[in-house]
């Protein structure tokens, strides 16, 4: 029940973000699924490789980008349309919030620890997206 609720909430937030970015029609469904795919891949990766956490983020971002690149080609749509919503579940919102909280409460040890974790995750997600997109671009050129 818990995991179902988890996926429903991710799907709903991805769908809502798609509406915020002005996406319409069938692309709403595809971009909503991008969020679900990235969250699913993240849960799977976290289960098998709990530490270091960046691995799970890297894997999830890579899987999500593969999904986005494939369906962008199938539907002849700019890949940004799917990527933007797919990235949202990978934003470590709680962690960034904690970083800010420790900053305001002058807890520098925890602040720096959380800041480094946030940067690590951001780098992992960026690497996942950039790596896969670059590979897709090579195929296009050949």
């Amino acid at each position, binding site marked *: 029940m818990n995991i179902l609720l988890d996926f429903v909430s991710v799907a709903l937030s991805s769908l809502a973000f798609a509406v915020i970015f002005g996406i319409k029609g069938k692309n709403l469904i595809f971009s909503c699924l991008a969020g679900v795919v990235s969250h699913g891949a993240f849960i799977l990766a976290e289960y098998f490789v709990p530490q270091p956490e960046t691995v799970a983020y890297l894997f999830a971002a890579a899987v999500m980008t593969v999904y986005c690149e494939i369906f962008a080609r199938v539907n002849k*749509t700019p890949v940004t349309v799917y990527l*933007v919503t797919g990235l949202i579940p990978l934003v470590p919102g709680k962690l960034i919030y904690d970083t800010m909280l420790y900053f305001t409460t002058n807890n520098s040890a925890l602040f720096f620890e959380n800041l480094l974790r946030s940067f690590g995750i951001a780098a992992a997600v960026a690497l996942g997206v*950039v790596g896969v997109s670059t590979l897709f671009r090579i195929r296009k050129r050949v």
Partner: protein
Amino acid sequence: MKGTTLSFAVDMGAELLYCGAEIRRVEETMELILKSYGYDSCSVSATHVNIVATVSEKDGEPLTKTMRIKGKDTNLHRLELLNALSRKICETKPDISVARKELENIRKEKGSGLLAETIAFAAVGLSYSLSLGGSIGDMLTALLSAAITRIILFFLEKQRFNNFFTSIISAALIAVITSLSSFFGFCSHSDIAMTGALITLVPGIALTNCMRDFMSEDYLSGISGLSEAILTASGIAIGVAVVFFAKGALI
């Protein structure tokens, strides 16, 4: 003829930038349009704020058009329509006046509308705090503060305040609403409620595009996109921090 084609290509690029396309897409689209109308030697360069395009025929005078792009109205639906239009232009090469009419039609395409976006903001607040494991009170607080944020953003955008200021104000607003809600015992985890509402302000498109800009070696645009994202994120942090400090002083 040369002038109208060039103007059309530049307008098309400007509209793409305006809707939130990455630089490579803008340059490639303009180049493909110019080439499909027979201007083989053309040179196009774009950044987030301007476009320069030059075409020249054999033994002819070169012709250049530049355009300054101001403001941004991210709309991925329009972006998709523009992409489809440029695909169609390259395949069928319609008359420029026909293509221009279609561009004007795309320009008239509206976003999701304030009501739909307010509901979407509320839904993001609700579902994000749900996925973080918030209670019913947390979810409702996030829902309410996210919805109010969208309405305030509407007025701030109308006043053409800059991005940084807008994110400070809206983040502070969310922090105030959540703090009040937790003060009256309505939400049990104020951190979850606040994160759920703040996630609506995350500069998603700026980040995605700056990654793609860096990847296609458009470093200048990548840096300007990254600074937009960092500035927005710092704005959010400052807005919340100010409220926290104020709360610390009051209680």
